[in-house]
């Protein structure tokens, strides 16, 4: 059999396969160059950027929980200018689509960030309206449908790049947010960001994290993410990038069958820094074994088949 076609379309963006990295878990990509061929990835999504540099939250910033990780990094980053000047030129050499995750405290900041990334080597923007670890903005924008739509409209108006919107799972109605963001002009949706959580150190009788609350990620959150991808992918016409606890090919397939057009590996990179490339190979092998010509044929198959009564 000929090689299966893993090509994936995220709005106007074409990726050679559906496997990307989740923002904040892959640095700026360069750190992984000694361990894997960056060019092999569908796309690299870099750590969230803000207009000005951010120092981040006080330590401790991470704590492991049962099959999960709580983090409260607080969007530490060098700021967009430094990224464009110092980091992007190096990343460009690997000829892999670079998606920049952006966060703002105000609508204006989102708009300025989006505008700044036009006419650069960046392939798309991922609008983070779901960070649980910063006081202003972030999550606030992501939990109210009208505000989420305003952010997306502001970004849309200021960029010619594909716009991906990253949704928070910390909402009662994920479908409502997804619909309103899609209507505001998003080209694709990413879900899920981390689930708000916390841990107590019983020896110190205090919260473990310096920031008190943190975002839960890793295999522990996967069932929540799968459920949300299933719901959202049926409710909107734009592609969904699924993430939350992916560590293996089987996990990636689960997301794709639930309706994800592409997938992103996050915390999985910490456990196995080569997880992304292993999953790409695994998807290819699965398609060969199951006689699937295009990976696209699997997207949403878990609900599509049900609807068609096959």
């Amino acid at each position, binding site marked *: 059999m000929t090689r299966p076609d893993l090509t994936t379309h995220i709005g106007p963006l074409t990726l050679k396969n559906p496997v990307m990295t989740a923002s*904040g*878990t*892959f*640095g700026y990509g360069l*750190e*992984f160059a*000694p*361990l894997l061929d960056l060019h092999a990835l569908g796309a690299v999504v870099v*750590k969230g950027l803000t207009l000005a540099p951010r*120092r*981040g939250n*006080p*330590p*401790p*910033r*991470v*704590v*492991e929980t*049962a*099959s*999960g*990780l709580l*983090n409260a*990094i607080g969007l*530490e980053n060098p700021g967009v200018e430094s990224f464009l000047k110092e980091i992007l030129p190096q990343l460009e050499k690997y000829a892999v689509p670079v998606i920049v995750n952006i966060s703002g405290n105000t609508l204006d900041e989102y708009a300025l960030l989006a505008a700044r990334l036009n006419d650069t080597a960046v392939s798309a923007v991922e609008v983070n309206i779901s960070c649980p670890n910063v006081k202003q903005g972030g999550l606030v924008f992501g939990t109210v449908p009208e505000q989420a739509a305003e952010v997306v409209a502001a970004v849309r108006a200021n960029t010619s790049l594909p716009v991906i919107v990253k949704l928070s799972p910390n909402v009662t109605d994920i479908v409502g947010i997804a619909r309103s963001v899609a209507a505001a002009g998003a080209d694709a949706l990413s879900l899920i960001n981390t689930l708000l959580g916390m841990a107590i150190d019983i020896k110190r009788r205090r919260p473990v994290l310096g920031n008190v609350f943190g975002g839960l990620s*890793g*295999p522990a959150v996967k069932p929540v993410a799968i459920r949300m991808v299933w719901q959202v992918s049926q409710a909107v016409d734009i592609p969904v990038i699924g993430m939350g606890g992916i*560590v293996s090919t089987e996990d990636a397939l689960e997301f794709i069958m639930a309706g994800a057009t592409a997938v992103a590996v996050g*915390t999985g*990179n*910490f*456990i*196995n*820094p*080569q997880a992304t490339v292993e999953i790409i190979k695994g998807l290819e092998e699965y398609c060969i074994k199951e006689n699937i010509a295009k990976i696209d044929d699997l997207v949403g198959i878990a609900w599509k088949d049900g609807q068609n009564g096959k």
Partner: protein
Amino acid sequence: MQRQYVEIKNLKQLTGRYYLLTLAAPLVARSVKPGQFVQLKVSAQLDPLLRRPFSIHDWCDAQGNVEILFQVRGKGTRLLADRKQGDYLDMLGPLGNGFSIPRAPGKALLIGGGIGAAPLWGLAKSLHARNWQVTVLLGGAGEQFLVRPEEFSRWGRTIITTDDGSRGISGRVTEALPLVAAQEFDQIYACGPKPMLAAIYDWARITGLPLQVSLDEVMACGMGVCLGCAHPVRKGKETVYAKVCSQGPVFDAREVVWHDQA
């Protein structure tokens, strides 16, 4: 830095909760610097999820071995202690910067508290090989928390302290500092609990002697991408966060912010 499956050549209990793990890792043995560490996946399961960081205790290029000396603390280290000779472990490394050794040989003071002395063994060996005169201050809560107390004297004069007085001088390792004259040394190295390091810094600062400390911060990735291991450091007049895994774990003590209120 690379990821590989390495075979457990030997795993033996030393005293109490300390274990010595010998791994077949020729590539790491060839390139490692004292003070660097590796990230080990202690089991293939998803719980415990993350790798665990361990300093490289010793290495032998000829045999292609690296050694880890670890203390059983929680579920990850418990699982590691239960692994068997012949098992394979998923290892990422070597990671971090390691200690720097000035070119011209001189006199070095190495201070280790508890399991913090683990990386000082490889450092003492390297210093010794480069004709440095080594003095070691080894402390622990009790005798069973001392790292290889008999053998350390192989590298130089070794002074031992225990909090409970079960061996050597009774008291904390910092209480033995007056026994050595700071001015005698060209370089001080320390690894152990944060309060110990801060106390050593206060002592070394008076004499202006260079002090390198190896910091321990909870880690997720170990390779500079998650920003989870932040520790405050001084950059000019500003306080910024450094990544202990990739910018450290060894820092010039003068750069470290010891009492952060930020």
